């Protein structure tokens, strides 16, 4: 009753007035009177001159403090608001979400998994939070790579590696930006480094178990050539003795090359859009394959099994830089057996 009476008091046409108090029960009238007196005692009317002076200061400092404009993507506006999508997706029944979480790119639920990752990215608003989400997603790509190799489906590895590169770079960039803004990024940096170390170890592990073309991607040899290719830029060259993290590693985002961005479900936001979207500025020119032509246009994520005559790697194959021979070519055929030949990690 007090609450309602106070609300009437404050919002009524007469403001706080005796008329309002007459309607309230007797026991709370003294409290209402006190509230009215408080309101009177607390009121302040700033001077217009001071208001203007402070405004001058604020507006002078404003350009430097302006947050980056939020770019509205027409497709996003067309769909449900991201937060609503995020809430809807995260409210999926536990069984479905659980199943999706463990889905690999060869699973029909994989697009849902991508959407869940996207939703988590949207929910995490702070830069360190988004960096952690991106690093976590990069870690999942590694799990998927291992799973696909274990299942004898190495044709998914190239795409997954491209996505891993994008996501770990996003995590790195977000963490760097957060650090510049004074956020504590110790934990997320440790997470990124651990993920990178796990990547290196995994690449060492699977190199002998994947076809030559995928090996080339792992080593990032230009043109998909065999040993001797120049790993300049792009994915780091793997050394058997340890991990390599050359500067400018992974340009999967530059030039709009990211396979993930092309294969993401229509209208969806890829996790990389948590921090950035589209081509990364200032990244070295893409040595990575150009847009996956074969995999775009209707391919709703990676979950779809390769269409007849179109293997997941084929589009990437087509986009290989000039001179790329592309030793890995499904062309609808089964990939060469990974056991073919002796595979050593570093022939050079």
């Amino acid at each position, binding site marked *: 009753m*007090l*609450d309602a009476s*106070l*609300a009437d008091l*404050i*919002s009524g046409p*007469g*403001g*706080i*007035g*005796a008329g309002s*108090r007459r309607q309230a029960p007797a026991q709370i009238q*003294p*409290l209402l*009177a*006190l*509230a*009215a*007196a*408080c*309101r*009177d*005692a*607390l*009121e*302040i*009317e*700033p001077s217009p001159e*001071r*208001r203007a*002076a*402070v*405004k001058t*200061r*604020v*507006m002078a*400092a*404003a*350009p430097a*403090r*302006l*947050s*980056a*404009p*939020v770019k509205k993507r027409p497709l996003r506006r067309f769909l449900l*608001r991201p*937060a609503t999508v995020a809430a809807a997706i995260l409210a999926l029944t536990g069984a479905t979400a659980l199943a999706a979480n463990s889905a690999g790119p060869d699973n029909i639920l994989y697009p849902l998994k991508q959407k869940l990752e996207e939703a988590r990215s949207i929910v995490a*608003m702070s830069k360190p939070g988004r960096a952690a989400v991106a690093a976590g997603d990069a870690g999942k790509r590694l799990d998927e790579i291992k799973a696909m190799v274990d299942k004898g489906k190495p044709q998914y590895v190239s795409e997954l590696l491209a996505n891993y590169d994008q996501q770990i770079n996003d995590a790195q960039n977000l963490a760097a930006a957060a650090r510049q803004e004074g956020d504590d990024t110790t934990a997320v940096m440790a997470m990124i480094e651990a993920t990178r170390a796990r990547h290196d170890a995994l690449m060492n592990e699977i190199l002998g178990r994947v076809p030559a073309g995928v090996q080339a991607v792992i080593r990032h040899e230009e043109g998909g050539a065999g040993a001797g290719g120049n790993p300049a830029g792009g994915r780091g060259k793997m050394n058997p003795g340890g991990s390599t993290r050359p500067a400018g590693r992974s340009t999967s985002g530059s030039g709009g090359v990211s396979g993930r961005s092309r294969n993401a479900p229509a209208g969806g936001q890829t996790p990389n859009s948590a921090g950035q979207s589209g081509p990364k500025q200032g990244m070295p020119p893409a040595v990575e394959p150009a847009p996956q032509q074969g995999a775009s246009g209707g391919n709703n994520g990676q979950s779809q099994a390769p269409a007849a005559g179109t293997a997941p790697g084929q589009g990437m194959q087509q986009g290989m830089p000039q001179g790329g021979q592309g030793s890995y070519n499904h062309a609808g055929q089964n990939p060469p057996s990974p056991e073919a030949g002796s595979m050593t990690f570093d022939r050079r």
Partner: protein
Amino acid sequence: MSEKRELSKLIKQVQKGDLDAFGKLYDRFYDPVYAYVLRQVGSPADAEDITAGVFLEALEKIGGFSWRGAGFGAWLFSIARHDVLDHFRRQGKNREAAITNNHMDIPSQEYVEATAEAAWDRQALRNAIWKLSDDQQHVLLLKLMVNFSNRQIAAVLSKGEGAVKALQHRALTNLRKIMEGNDD
């Protein structure tokens, strides 16, 4: 256009980098924010600095604002509340000291209706308010000065609406006891 829609449009413009729109937001919210801050810190100079900081911080963070929860006003006052707390931490002061020493005898607009039945001295009332708990003070400031709803107050104080109602009742009850004790 409804007020909320107009405000929403302004905010979207600011989010796109429109500083003129930001200036309009400032014009709209400066007075209540300044008053809220001044009533806590006591010094007009400090209040101006803090208020300027509130708006600049809001400008920095407005990209992440969305219309969920209690709305823009509550969001802005959350920033204000934290900035006041930071001010006290930096100064090594507590709020009581600030209030006791403050220039609380700030000229205020005369109420046309002069509705208070009891002739409570304004300064005595203000001093009594600062004897309440932190949460109770905030509820009174936000309800009586800023005209926030319980939902908005709950968002600023990170409490439930039920808790806000209870705080409101307790605040006025305690205030009355303090004032009656002073009158004795």
